[in-house]
Structure formats: structure tokens, C-alpha cells
């Protein structure tokens, strides 16, 4: 016995239309459509094996019901985003989120510490910064504090050139939890922006769509990552592109977002603003800028898998999801291992009471001072 919804899920993940997939497995399109839409269709062994073979999913994947399906959400996506890409991304998101839900049943996770707070995006961003305990300057790492307040961050092992991100409040027995889904391959600065943007949606909006809510989410993201107070102090008057590239390194945001902030801070005229963007375009960097900001990896999904399945959780995760072990490895690779937890060197004037200091330099100085 198999579940038709699983066949559809696997087909969409493959990126095939019904006609294409029907041809692959030797069925008619109508037959496949019927199969996908029946809850528990009957199927010949040959067709079953053909489906498993062509989709790459083990037979047991089709023999279990799906759960934890993500609501239909609109993607923040590029203009080139096609329906087939969207379906593929959504199918992958559901596959991964299903295992998240199953693990969440058995593992304690951080309590959700945020709630929707519709209001002024800038003010909400400032309050949210305080909630996360972020310093007044650059946000060294956004992912970890966001996960600490109970946001489920999932990165999918599919390309981020076409997709950006999406978010939704998902139901759960302990109450709804915020879910942000991002994609592999997204440049580090854009990934941070996407997460900040989606946080804006989660806090400010109750669904809906349109340019206005997108603008509000952008305003929120800009204030979260680059507070205007700091920008006003740091962006020089009439900045050159080179200065903004240097700021990009420190602030972990794109040069293009800094150009926008420069205009908002009154550091450039409209003419200079246009000129800076023209320079970015002339370098061919509108979609992908040089000088990459390191990508941040979420941790909790992998940590949940480690809690349940040990330090090498791929076999256990593949069994849980009905996946191949290779796919489980691909999924896990999107998340930080313990050794990949964000670390940074801090310079302390005294032995500051950092509870999470793991190493103090105690090298004996042997400088050849006179």
C-alpha cells in the first residue's frame, strides 16, 4: 500500500510534470494523476518499483503518510521563479520540515520567545534587537540568537539562485512556532538579509501580500542589521563604492543595502545614489556581489538529529524521513555541527566574565623588547 500524496511529493521534488513522470514510469498521465490524488491507491509492483527507482526515494518512503506539511506560502523569489521551481522547493521544504516535526515530538527545543507585534517596522526592529540581546554595532551572527528565541530555521539543500526564502507560523502542540526556510547557495549577505526580512513578516504581518508589506519587511531588515543611528555615524558624506565595500565586511550586509542606507541617512543625493547603483551594475554585481560574507548555518535541526541519533545522525535521519542516506547527508550539511558553532575572538581589557569563553590565551610573552 502506498500513499498517492507521497508520489506527488517525490515527483515534484524531481521537478517533473505529470506527463514527464508518467512517461518515465510507463503510465498514462491520467493514470498518474489518479494515483497521486487517491489517498491509498493500489498499484502494481512494477509501477511501484519504477516510481521508487526514478524518484530515488526508497520504497518505504511511499508507504508512510506525510505530516507537518507547510502551509501554502508565497515565496520571496526572483522574477525568473517558475512554477516547477516553486513546486520543487515546496516539496523539498515539506520533506525536511516533516522530519523537523517528527524530531520536535521527541526533543525539547527553545521556547518561542517572540510574538507578532504589528506596528512601526523600525521601532519593532529596535525592540527585536533588544530582545535578541544584540550589540549596538554590527550583528556578528544573526542565526544563533534567532534560533535561541525558538525560531525554526531550516535551510534546504537546493539552490538559492532562484529562491530567496519564506516564512510562516506553524501549528504545534506547545503553540505556534515561527518557521523560516532558506535555500543553499544563497550568498551570506543575502541570506542574512532574507532571514531579517522574514522575521519582519513574522512579526509585522498576518499573511497578505503586496508591495507595501514587502517594503515594511525590508525596512525592518535594514534597521535590524544596520541601525540608522550607527549608519548615520559611520557612513561618510558622499561615500565612494570602495568605502561601502569596506563597510560590507564589517556589517555583513550587501553594498546595495548600504547604498540605500546612505540615502536614508542623507549621505548621498538621489543623483549619487543612482550613480552608485550604476557602478554596481557596471561591475555585474546586482545579483551577486564580490567579497562574500560568510554564510551562517543554523544549528538546531542538526542538534535535534544528534540528540536522537548520535554524533553521525545521517542513517537515523534517513530512516526517519524515508530518505536515502545521501539525501540525509545533503540536508545535514546545511546545518552547523557542534564544531561549526559561531565563534569569535574578543579582546578583553580584563578577564571579562564571558560565560562562553572556551579559550584564553596564556602564551608566555617572549617579545624581544628592549
Amino acid at each position: 500500500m502506498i500513499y498517492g500524496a507521497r508520489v506527488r511529493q517525490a515527483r515534484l521534488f524531481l521537478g517533473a510534470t505529470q506527463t514527464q513522470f508518467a512517461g518515465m514510469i510507463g503510465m498514462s498521465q491520467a493514470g498518474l494523476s489518479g494515483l497521486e490524488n487517491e489517498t491509498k491507491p493500489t498499484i502494481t509492483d512494477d509501477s511501484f518499483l519504477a516510481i521508487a527507482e526514478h524518484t530515488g526515494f526508497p520504497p518505504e518512503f511511499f508507504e508512510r503518510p506525510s505530516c507537518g506539511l507547510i502551509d501554502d506560502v508565497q515565496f520571496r523569489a526572483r522574477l525568473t521563479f517558475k512554477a516547477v521551481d516553486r513546486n520543487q522547493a515546496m516539496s523539498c521544504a515539506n520533506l525536511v520540515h516533516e522530519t523537523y516535526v517528527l524530531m520536535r515530538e521527541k526533543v525539547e527545543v527553545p521556547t518561542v520567545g517572540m510574538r507578532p507585534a504589528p506596528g512601526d517596522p523600525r521601532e519593532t526592529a529596535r525592540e527585536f534587537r533588544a530582545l535578541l540581546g544584540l550589540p549596538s554595532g554590527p550583528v556578528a551572527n544573526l542565526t544563533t540568537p534567532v534560533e535561541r528565541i525558538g525560531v525554526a530555521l531550516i535551510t534546504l539543500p537546493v539552490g538559492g539562485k532562484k529562491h530567496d526564502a519564506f516564512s510562516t507560523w506553524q501549528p504545534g502542540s506547545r503553540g505556534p512556532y515561527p518557521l523560516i526556510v532558506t535555500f543553499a547557495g544563497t550568498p551570506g549577505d543575502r541570506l542574512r538579509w532574507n532571514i531579517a526580512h522574514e522575521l519582519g513578516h513574522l512579526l509585522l504581518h498576518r499573511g497578505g501580500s503586496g508591495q507595501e508589506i514587502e517594503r515594511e519587511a525590508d525596512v525592518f531588515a535594514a534597521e535590524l542589521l544596520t541601525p540608522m543611528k550607527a549608519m548615520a555615524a559611520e557612513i561618510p558624506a558622499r561615500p565612494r563604492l570602495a568605502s561601502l565595500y569596506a563597510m560590507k565586511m564589517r556589517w555583513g550586509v550587501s553594498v546595495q543595502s548600504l547604498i540605500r542606507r546612505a540615502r536614508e541617512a542623507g549621505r548621498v543625493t538621489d543623483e549619487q545614489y543612482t550613480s552608485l547603483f550604476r557602478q554596481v551594475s557596471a561591475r555585474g554585481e546586482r545579483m551577486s556581489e564580490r567579497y562574500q560574507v560568510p554564510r551562517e548555518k543554523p544549528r538546531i535541526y542538526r542538534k535535534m538529529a544528534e540528540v536522537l541519533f548520535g554524533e553521525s545522525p545521517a542513517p537515523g535521519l534517513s530512516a526517519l524521513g524515508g530518505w536515502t542516506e545521501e539525501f540525509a547527508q545533503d540536508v545535514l550539511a546545511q546545518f552547523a555541527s557542534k564544531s561549526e558553532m559561531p565563534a569569535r575572538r574578543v579582546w578583553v581589557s580584563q578577564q571579562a566574565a564571558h560565560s562562553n569563553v572556551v579559550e584564553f590565551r596564556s602564551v608566555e610573552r617572549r617579545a624581544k623588547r628592549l
Partner: protein
Amino acid sequence: MIKEDDLVAIANRIWRPLDLLLGYLADGLQEEYEACIAKGIDPAEDACTFAGTVRRSVYDKMRPHLPPQSARAPMSPLHFDLGPYQLKVLHAEEGTVPRPRTVTRRRFYRRNELGIMSMNLLLDHPLVVIEEEVKEIEDGSLVLVWDNDGPELILADLYRPPLADFPGRSLDLLHATAVVVEPDFPDVRRDDTGTGDSRAATGTDDAGAGEGDTGAGGDSAGPDDRPGETDLP
């Protein structure tokens, strides 16, 4: 204009490039030292040339992270534009900041001056001409001085010149360093109470209620759009 600032605060503000730099400096030193030994060359015989090869190695490692204005010829001095700060990396002379033998270096050392020589670097150098004009600085000069004992990095001091109301000082990056790692989510652990999100996991109640519910459009579907799921924490 940069306000006077504590050197520790500055170091933490530019921690990312400084962190990279220290790591690459230690690695480059080790690699170049071993390369010299493998070729039968004693690095100590020509410390200046050896420092240059280390500099090149560091530059090669830093290059992918550099903004364009920091891009220079491979053997150029290590000079980085870090937003409001300009950082030069110099091999120590007698365990401290090298004397300003060139016009460029003198100019760099004086970037922060307010009518007095900065960092006490130039006081013992007879060639320095003290400029009359007192200017408020637009940028801040920093100098990272390093030294080695064989393949080991034994000195990494960050210097910040004095400003009007801020005494010049140096920060010992090797000693005053702590590596801070985010704790690994100690609250994520096995839940043996059976109070997990079991309803969602069954896919029959809550999760099912969301399926096909396209009323909540946009990037973010709001929690209040689902009946019975309005109680946020």
C-alpha cells in the same frame, strides 16, 4: 569623524578582519618558516626578507576577504581599509613599532595627531617634521606590530595613537584574547515527558488544518489565520 574610542572596543568592532589576520599571520609564519628550512635557508639570517615572504603569504590568504581598495601588489605592505580605520601590519623592530623611515609611513603615523606626535613613535626620530596645523581626524590609523621566534608568533600588538582626550596605547592581541563560542543549545535535549509537538507530528490535526489554507498569503502566514492557534507565548 571618529570619536575617541577605547582600543578594546575598536578591536572588538573590527574583530572579523583582525581574527582572520591573526590566524593567517600564525599560519603564514609557520608555512614560510618550514619552506625556508626545507630549502636549507635559515630565516634568521635575513629577517627582513623572511618577514616579506610572510607578508606575501598573509596577503594571499587575506585576498578573498579584501574590499577592492585593499587590493595591492603581492609584496606591498599589508594595509587594510576597515571602514573608519586604516590598519597597517608591520614586523616589529626591537619588539615595538618600526621607526618611520619613509614619508608614507611618517604620514600614516601622523594621521591621528592633534599637533603632537602620535604613539610616541616619532619622538626619537630626527627626520620627522611636526606639522603646525591641527586637524580633527577623519580616519583612524591602527598599527598591528608582529614579531616571531622561529615559526612562532610571539607578538601581536595593536597600536592606536593618542587623541586629544584619549591616551595612546597598545593592546596585546595575543594575551588579551578570548575565543567566545556560542553555547551549543543546551536546552535542545531529548524530551521524555511526552509533551512534544505530537499533534503536529501526527499530521492529522494541526498540520492538516493548515493544508490548502491559502487565505494567509504573503511570505509569512500569520498564526491568527488558523482557528484555535491564536495563543502566542
